């Protein structure tokens, strides 16, 4: 599903975020990416949906070499990847429902089918009763669950989350993690970056530990 071979990423200015990273994720795998902040977790995750491009080495996602992908092919790559960010990137000028509707707006779904999918996604994260609310009215944990609903509404094969439980209390964090695991159990490949080692130990899965730009 995802494979990195000898991937290095150097940012303009010379900062070397990743130095020769290699690993592979099978379809349906659950993996945690851990490491201290600044270890390169975010950079690694951003290489998968081509938000960043590798300086050297190759990133293969679904059989496509992401580093060499043409600009106009990137949207189609991203449609098969659900992205959850630490700072959710929700739009506060529209309702919870419309936030989740966003990825379906350009996927060519008939409106009725799209609405049905939005409600299904909201139901899975326990926000169905809040569909008319504005995201600003939701708690931190609820906002993160909304971001997950938006990430999965297109039924991607791969779900990537960057520190989804940061800034959340233990109970909310646990709930978020359970949602990810539930998606993994129905066959979605899940890769979660976190610095919370205890969380990882409780749930198992593949462990990728980044230290100063290398996998330990």
């Amino acid at each position: 599903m995802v494979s990195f071979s000898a991937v290095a990423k150097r940012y303009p200015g010379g900062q070397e975020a990743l130095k020769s990273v290699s690993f592979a994720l099978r379809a349906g795998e659950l993996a945690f990416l851990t490491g201290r902040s600044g270890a390169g977790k975010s950079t690694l995750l951003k290489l998968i949906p081509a938000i960043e491009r590798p300086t050297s080495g190759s990133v293969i996602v679904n059989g496509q070499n992401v580093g060499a992908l043409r600009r106009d092919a990137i949207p189609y790559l991203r449609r098969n990847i659900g992205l959850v960010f630490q700072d959710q990137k929700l739009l506060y000028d529209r309702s919870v429902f419309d936030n989740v509707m966003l990825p379906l707006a350009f996927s060519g779904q008939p409106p009725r089918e799209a609405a049905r999918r939005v409600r299904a996604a909201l139901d899975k994260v326990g926000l169905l009763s809040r569909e008319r609310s504005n995201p600003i009215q939701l708690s931190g944990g609820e906002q993160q669950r909304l971001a997950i609903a938006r990430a999965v509404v297109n039924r991607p094969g791969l779900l990537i989350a960057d520190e989804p439980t940061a800034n959340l209390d233990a109970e909310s964090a646990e709930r978020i993690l359970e949602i990810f695991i539930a998606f993994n159990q129905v066959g979605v490949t899940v890769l979660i970056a976190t610095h919370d080692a205890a969380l990882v130990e409780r749930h198992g899965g593949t462990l990728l530990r980044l230290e100063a730009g290398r996998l330990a």
Partner: protein
Amino acid sequence: MSAWLRHHRQAVVSALKRLGLLNAVVIGVALSLPAGGYTLLESLRGVAGRLALDTQLSVFLHPEAKRADAEALGKLLRADRRIARLRFVPRDEALKDLAAVQGMPEVIEALGRNPLPDAFVVTSDPQSLEALAADLGKLAGVAHVQADAAWARRLAAFASIGRLALWLLSALLGFGLVAVTFNTIRLQILTQREEIEVAKLIGATDGFIRRPFYYLGLLQGLAGGAVALAIVALGLWLLNHQVDELARSYGSRFRFAYLPAGDALAVVLFAGLLGWLGAQLSVSRHLREIEPR
């Protein structure tokens, strides 16, 4: 309904929501200058053109000339090969025409006698008109030769200079329209920065993201064109109100004509096209700057 149509409808709806009335007014006011000028000039050109084609001379006799003098002169004129048509206007007939104008019978009454001379109206080809006028002026019994076409030709010349000035003005303001749209779209892109970033992250194509901005530029241009036409129509209505009184006092039915439907449509479409162009330039310049980090 196909997905393609649905996307375009979404784009139009989103553009309509963001269409600023103020921008349309700014564009409309700017465009109303050349559109209004063009309308006025077209009206004047109609008049000037009609007169310039009239290659006529009026030959007036001395007021005290006898009918026999007139007949002698008539014979002379008929012999001139440069004269295509000749019409004699006796002084009594001229007086009757004058009396038909409102207010004039009282004036004529006060004069007590007919102040008008006998006259010939001479039609010739345009080339020989000036020479003919000079020759006729030298004939015995002729008091005055008036070339009606001279001032009309001058008017037509002024009108064509005016038209050139209008084209320059149109080009300048067209450029302004593109710049205004460019800036509006730039501000709109900045306002929607987050939305664009999120859309890119979740797999929206460039085309999908650009479409609403193209429509915004197009609609803003079209709306501006429509505002311009409304301003021109209002201006003409006010102007004609005054012109009507003045023209009637000269016995004329002259009015400034509205833009023909075809020209009006062209103004609106052209404004729309320029708006679209401004959007195109702005989008290709600014949308690339917004990339998710």
